[in-house]
């Protein structure tokens, strides 16, 4: 998850110098001072000129030292929606044995957000949080962190870009949309959804745990007694099964307008799902041919959002909806069918 600024100093990319006004003042003033010294032979002016150039070198070498010993590590947010403010935490570590880094600015490359760290002690670390926003849903590589220092003399903004390994999953954008459009699936379809959708009712029998079983049905006493996971199989119970159905099929996949509208649909579905779950309503999701049974809770919400974050549009006929779902209320682009 972390990278060291010094790696960049070896090959130099990632290290940037941005001139500031003080540099231009220095660039103009130094030749004037040099001309005055040359023209008069005044050694006091030569001293001043040498010291000014020495100060320039000192500023560069010390800021380079500071930058070389700084490491940034970005902790991505646990839950982030596209376009929404997302707090991220950056830990900046200073490995310099003797010099504290003062006035360090951290920015995210390609994303908004910047934060000032007043001081990072020598051989110490400081964390800072800043608010950013990811523009699009999906799996994004974590943004690189640009560390900037200006001291001791602000001729340049000296910066190192520290790349961050790892990715962040960005959920779809949340929008203010109309009330959700529900689809209810029939009994036949519900039977095919597996035991997770059928949770509830009286216990019919105990059996060994199988992949896909709801962990809440684990019978802990029997599990402890038999030293193997045992679950309770319950009698089927009809439950309200409400689904949000999203049609992934687009007439053309190379049309930017259609893709943008598809994004809007995904955002609307995600918003409806989250709102319903927050109201305590069980929600299922039909994305093309795949069906997520209705459920509740944080884990279920995360699962729905992950699927919606990663869903992609497909061409006509590539991923049709289940027959029954296709007849209900479907989130679909107008004119797609």
């Amino acid at each position, binding site marked *: 998850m972390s990278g060291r600024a010094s790696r960049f100093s070896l090959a130099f990319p990632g290290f940037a110098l941005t001139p500031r006004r003080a540099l231009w003042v220095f660039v103009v003033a130094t030749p004037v001072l040099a001309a005055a010294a040359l023209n008069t032979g005044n050694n006091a002016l030569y*001293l001043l000129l040498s*010291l000014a150039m020495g100060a320039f070198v000192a500023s560069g070498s010390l800021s380079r030292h500071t930058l070389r010993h700084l490491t940034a590590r970005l902790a991505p947010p646990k839950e982030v929606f596209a376009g929404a403010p997302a707090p991220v935490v950056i830990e900046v570590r200073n490995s310099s044995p003797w010099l504290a880094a003062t006035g360090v600015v951290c920015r995210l490359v390609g994303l908004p957000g910047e934060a000032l760290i007043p001081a990072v002690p020598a051989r110490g670390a400081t964390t800072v949080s800043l608010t950013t926003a990811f523009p699009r849903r999906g799996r994004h590589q974590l943004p690189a962190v640009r560390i900037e220092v200006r001291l001791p003399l602000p001729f340049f903004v000296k910066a190192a870009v520290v790349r961050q390994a790892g990715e962040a999953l960005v959920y779809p954008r949340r929008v203010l949309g109309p009330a959700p459009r529900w689809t209810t699936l029939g009994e036949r379809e519900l039977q095919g959804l597996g035991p997770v959708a059928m949770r509830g009712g009286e216990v019919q029998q105990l059996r060994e745990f199988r992949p896909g079983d709801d962990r809440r049905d684990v019978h802990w006493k029997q599990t402890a007694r038999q030293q193997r996971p045992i679950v309770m199989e319950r009698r089927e119970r009809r439950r309200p099964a409400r689904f949000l159905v999203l049609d992934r099929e687009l007439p053309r996949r190379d049309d930017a307008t259609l893709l943008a509208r598809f994004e809007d649909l995904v955002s609307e579905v995600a918003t409806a799902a989250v709102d319903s779950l927050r109201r305590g309503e069980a929600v299922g999701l039909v994305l093309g041919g795949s069906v997520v049974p209705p459920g509740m809770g944080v884990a279920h919400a995360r699962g729905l959002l992950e699927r919606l974050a990663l869903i992609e549009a497909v061409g006509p006929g590539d991923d049709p909806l289940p027959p029954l779902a296709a007849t209900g209320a479907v989130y679909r682009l107008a004119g797609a069918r």
Partner: protein
Amino acid sequence: MKGSGAGGVSEARRAGSGWALERQRWLAGLALLLSLPLPLTGVVTWPVAGLFATVAVAVALSRRPLSPVPNWVENLLAPLVVVIVVMAGGLRFGILRPVAHLAVLVAAVRLPGSAQPARTASFAALLTLVGVAGIASSTHVTLIGYLPVVLSVVVMAVARLELLGMAGRLGAGRKADWPPPRLVVASVLIAMAVAAPLFALLPRLRSPFAAGVMTGGAVSGFRETVSLNNIRSIQVSRARALRVALEEADEPAGEWLRLAGATSQSYRGGLWAQGQLGRERLLPGAGGDLPLGDEPASPARLEVTLETPSDRIFLPPGAARVLLAERVPFWRDPQGSLGATRRLEAGFSYAVVFDPARVILPPPNQGDLEVPDDLDGLRSLAAGVTAGATNRTGAANLLEEHLRTAYDYTMKWPLDAPFSRDPVAWFLFEGKRGHCEFFASAMVMLLRSQDIPARLQTGYLGGEPDGAGGWVVRDANAHAWVVAWVDEAWRVFDPTPAVGRPAFSTAARLPPWRLTWLRVEEVWDRWVLTFSLADQLELLRRGWESAAATGRRLVVWFAGALAGAALVAAGVLAWRRRAAAAGGEGISDITARAVDRLRREALSRAWAGAGATPRELTREVARRCPPARASAEWLVATHEAVRYRGLPPPGKAEVRRQLRATLRSLAGVRGQG
């Protein structure tokens, strides 16, 4: 919410006001520090410097950020500033003095309100000008301590102001930190370490400049042409002129350290001029021996070394013989002045055998009795003074005594001798004050008015121990005196009052701390103040010679050092790479690196943008290169499984195999868009 928002705004305002106040205090403090040398060197008069200091202290002590002076007040003050600059001398004394006055006065007007961001830059430029003027006019050794102090305060101030600005922009009301003292100290130390060789290497195209007190104008060293109306402040310069060693005495007796550089006979309109008529050429003998007069009965001997380039050599009035290490042709004029036919560089040395009891000069002629016609009252004054004298020596003694007692010595500058009057006449009858050249010139004229042949001699008098058994003669030891023909011989008279005669201090009388300080000043004068192109060439020559002497051994050492440095650098590089690899990604990141490699490949072909998600990337790869589809999808799916489902990472070999398969497939479609 409303209440807390208003509270936040007012807190931010308070913080902003606090930052502005601190900025104002830093600027006022810097102004005080940078203007410190100006009154001490005399480039800015004390009243102006005092006014500036008062404004700076008032601004520094203010409890709120001050507003700028209104424009109409500035407009009103502008003529006053000009008047003060003119009253302080205007352009009469060179450019530095009026510029320094102007900068200080404008800075005083603009200091209030300088903390406003829009005005800080222009005020900083003014302060820079003030600081440069102060440093440029300083020749004292304390400059070497002043400069690091200034640099450390500037670094501290600039860093602090930068942090304040950053806290204002990004800190969200957070308190700004202070720059660490180590950063400031390290900055100063590195700057000085870099500055020292730079100072030695920066090219010198002109002779070293020593700034004169009061004007900041150049002190040019010894001048044989004495211009009374235009004398500069050479007598307060600490620049080294000569180094003198006595061969047979620890301390110079009486007149031993009176060294003449020129003897002048012709005086016209305030100027002692030297003509070139009648000059004879002298070539030293085979041993560098240059005889000037009869061998003295009880000779003394001096070793003299020039510390600044000159076309003159400086000799005691009784010099009988000069022993030169180098056979340089000389000329001698009818008045006895001795000069080289080429410029003698610093370091040129010679020995002089002389008679301390005599003055050896060509005998007098008619020119030694010439008196300008416009010196009215000269004869009556001289006659009145010498009324009681029975012979020429007595008359000369009376005139010397009269000038010493009835006239005041002053180095206060400028002397207000009007250009319309002859300076000697002005000195004798109106001003009655002046420096040594006035006294000596007046005595020459008074002696001549009484038919006593006399000449003006200029050179150096006195000196101070150099701590190594020798004596240092500085520009401040420049002096003028009189040689008069009395009792059938030339004799030295010095009409300048004792307070104006350069003295020589003796080592025996100096406390140890003073001797140490003298050595410090010695180093300062020798290696900083008068450091010149000749010194640079000398350093280069010495370096070259030592390199040549060391020769092969040096080459071996150099090669060894180079190889060692390369080994160390390679080791450090390897260690850093290993540390980076060890401290960076773990085994679980192998799939991330593989996907990253795939991303770079797609980016290089412009198949995907930098922000493409891995799935978008895979889709594009699959679309443009179907054979790579399976392996690319495996990579992405595996990566997602590891990253998001917490599954264990696959083996490195498998990931590499899939990556290689993908890249091999992609290589087949290189160049196809």
